[in-house]
């Protein structure tokens, strides 16, 4: 049986991890490769690197980051941000990333999902969906947003999730815009709806504030993985502790 995955997310700006990460005894807390290997040693099942560099001229920087990260870890990692074509996807995958994540580009040209599937296989194609609760706007009351959560699309989250699977997505990274950064827990209703509507793995993101939130996530929804950033970065929750607690609560994990 597959175990539930714990995935730290690192935001990368111009080749450095930002939002600040505080590990004890770590001289350079902004190096994506060093941080990746620390998380990997702590027992992370996978890593997500999100390139938030705005300009496209900086593409070569993220490729460099990918190469360094691939050199320093032996667990899978996904790269997202700025991938909007087969070319940009090829750049990161052939330099050592295992999966690419697309978001805005998937909404603007869904055919890209299929193109990526046909070349790399659906195992490498993650579609990220940013969801916001807007009562009455769409059938599920959750609407898809793009451009970093700033632009509403009118798309229904559940319908869109089913669509991206048809187009060829092998995994969905589902972020609740409402819960992101609040530390009040994952959006269980959203996660439950989406993970029950599709038969590909779903990574839940947004709102993790403590261990209880992960237990809740895995007990109450079909999510395959929980993703979080700040609670790991600031050492509020250690991955090893989290996994031990999950196991104690009957949730299968890799320890």
């Amino acid at each position, binding site marked *: 049986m597959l175990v539930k*995955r714990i995935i730290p997310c690192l935001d990368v700006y111009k080749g450095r991890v930002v939002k600040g990460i505080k590990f004890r005894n770590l001289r350079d807390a902004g190096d994506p490769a060093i941080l990746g290997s620390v998380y990997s040693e702590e027992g992370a099942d996978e890593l997500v690197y999100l390139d938030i560099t705005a300009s496209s001229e900086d593409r070569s920087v993220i490729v460099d980051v990918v190469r360094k990260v691939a050199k320093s870890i*032996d667990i*899978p990692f996904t790269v997202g941000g700025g991938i909007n074509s087969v070319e940009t996807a090829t750049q990161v995958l052939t330099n050592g990333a295992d999966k690419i994540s697309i978001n805005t580009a998937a909404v603007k040209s869904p055919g890209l999902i299929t193109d990526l599937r046909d*070349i*790399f*296989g659906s195992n490498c194609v993650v579609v990220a969906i940013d969801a916001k609760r807007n009562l009455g706007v769409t059938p599920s009351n959750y609407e898809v947003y793009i451009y970093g959560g700033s632009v509403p699309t009118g798309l229904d989250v559940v319908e869109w999730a089913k669509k991206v699977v048809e187009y060829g997505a*092998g995994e969905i990274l589902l972020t609740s815009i409402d819960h992101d950064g609040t530390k009040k827990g994952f959006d269980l209703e959203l996660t439950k709806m989406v993970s029950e509507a599709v*038969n590909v793995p779903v990574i839940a993101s947004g709102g993790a504030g403590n261990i209880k939130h992960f237990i809740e996530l895995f007990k109450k929804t079909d999510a395959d993985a929980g993703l979080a950033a700040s609670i790991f970065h600031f050492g509020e929750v250690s991955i090893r502790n989290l996994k031990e607690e999950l196991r104690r609560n009957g949730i299968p994990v890799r320890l």
Partner: protein
Amino acid sequence: MKGAILNYGVGNLFSVKKGFEAHSNTRVSIIDMENLNKSFLRSVDFLVFPGVGHFTAASKKLLPMKNLIMEAVDEGLSIFGICLGLQLLGFSSMEGAGRGLGVFKGHSVRFPDGVKIPHMGWNKVEYLRPSKLFEGIDSPYFYFAHSYYLSLDDSRYVLGVTHHGVSFPSVVGKELVVGVQFHPEKSGDSGLRLIKNYLEMIKG
């Protein structure tokens, strides 16, 4: 030890190379299919069939070299298949047209409805038969990312199985030909140990 990774698809070969080269005195090159020839195959101890790409596309590139590769295997060349690379050691696949090498009699099939596809994430390998490959691996969890698996006609060659809706062969071996359905290069310490065990095994 000297090895080569066959380049028959698009994807992450970097980590595979790194996974093998993490072990002392092992050098691995990446070789394009059209550059494969007898003298090259004689110069390496093992060939890695990596887990990147699509069955049909990879099969198209691989098949013209089938006889060359099988002759080398008869002369003592070892093969290590990863994910799709394992499936290419069977006869054919539901993923699409094309043929594999047929080292293992079997056909790759899709997971049944009702389970999540792709089978993605960390899962356990249950050891069916004793093998040097499993030595010293305390936590037999490995990283999988696939929608098809090779179903073998002859269970003698199944060394380990994994459960995802069905029990499927996740480690197979026949003399010097070994295949794993997971990605050892992405499976942390357990994966690296398995690669090390493999290298020691074929060293004899």
